[in-house]
């Protein structure tokens, strides 16, 4: 791999993203990977190796890929990392970067959109609403929708999920 393809800045970019500081603590011991439910199922997902590739700056092999999305954020690694290296936390940092480059799974995108429109990531279907009524469970319509939307306007969630130059997800 050539320098041109190695992204020197990736490690500090991640380190300076909220929840990304842990990348600097990693000593590559592998406790995270052997504790990870997904890593046990597929060789494809390897939190430790993901950290290593970020440290070295293999941007094109990490950011546009599924890999960061394979993390369940079950936080087992968080509790077992001897360095308090926050692998599970760093994953959020990486995903935040990935989204900015257009790498966001359809399911997640849908939830984000729904959030912007309704203030909820999941919404009841008609029948459920009827059932609620019949049980006298009362309304769940979101009074504060306008507030939610103005918050999301301020955090520019819409821009985040539809970046100009969209990187193809491999």
């Amino acid at each position, binding site marked *: 791999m050539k320098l041109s393809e190695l992204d020197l800045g990736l490690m500090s970019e991640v380190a300076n993203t909220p929840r990304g500081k842990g990348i600097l603590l990693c000593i590559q011991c592998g406790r995270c990977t052997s504790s990870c439910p997904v890593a046990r199922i597929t060789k494809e997902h390897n939190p430790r190796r993901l950290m290593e590739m970020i440290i070295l700056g293999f941007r094109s092999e990490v950011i546009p890929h599924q890999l960061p999305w394979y993390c369940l954020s079950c936080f087992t690694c968080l509790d077992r990392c001897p360095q308090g290296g926050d692998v599970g936390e760093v994953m959020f940092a990486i995903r935040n970067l990935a989204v900015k480059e257009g790498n966001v799974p359809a399911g*997640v995108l849908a939830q984000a959109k729904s959030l912007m429109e309704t203030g909820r990531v*999941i919404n009841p279907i008609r029948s459920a609403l009827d059932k609620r009524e019949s049980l006298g469970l009362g309304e769940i319509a979101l009074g504060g929708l306008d507030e939610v939307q103005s918050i999301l306007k301020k955090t520019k969630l819409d821009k*985040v999920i539809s970046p100009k130059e969209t990187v193809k997800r491999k």
Partner: protein
Amino acid sequence: MKYAFFVGCLIPARELSYEVSVRKVLPALGIELVDMKDANCCAPFSIQSVDHASWMALAARNLCIAEEMGLDVLTLCNDCYESLLMVNTLLKNNKALKNKVNEILADVGKEFKGKSDVKHLIDVLYDDVGMKTIKNAITEPFTELKVGTQPGCHLTKPKRIHFEVLRGFRALDELIAATGAETIPYERKEMCCGGPLRDINDELARQVAREKLISLKNAEVQGIVTVCPFCYLQLDTGQLEVKRHFNEEYNLPVLHFIELLKMAMGMKLEDWEVKSHRIPLGDIVKGRIQEE
């Protein structure tokens, strides 16, 4: 005792029996639930993954509502619990972050002060109601019912936002014991249900669920008890998907803990509640169903 009741998105949309049972059981145990009227989504895993600021701000907004009500938050869902508890802890301990978030909230006339706490249903039952009261409330305890629990990840993890490791596990086990049922330990008890991977990589989500189901099957349990709507969804509906893809029979009925407690307290399940479970509850609910 009063709580700001945070019901979340998934439960009212898909798992009404959970909500109904909570609304029935907790008042019976002396807990008053006050709905958080204008609460928004807790901003779960998916939103956290998309944008940090949005997550913080939305979670904080919910916390502000609870503060305005002057109450602590009661959540039924591990995801809501993790999101709200994490943000609450972070903002309470990080002034700079708090100011940033409050800047965003200022536009909607809200300010995070850090006056409320966030509690999971299990915390409330175990700490506030207390085992004594619960034991006294049990009128029709289960006998010879062996269950495996799915405490879920965020009831206890990450350690740093929970005062005691595996405390949630112990609490849940004791609570189940109070209902007369027996919790059987199994190898993959601490493992995630795989829920978060639904809609991202269903294949993987199923395989994680499968590992858990196999481990439960090996422990020869009669059913699974959950405390999180996502775990429930993943192990109940998910169980059918696993069955279909690997064509393996498990037939492990899945119950919300609150349903278990409800029945042990002598309240019957209604027919629609029983039917809302994709895996038939079978003998577990024998004689505990409301006649029409």
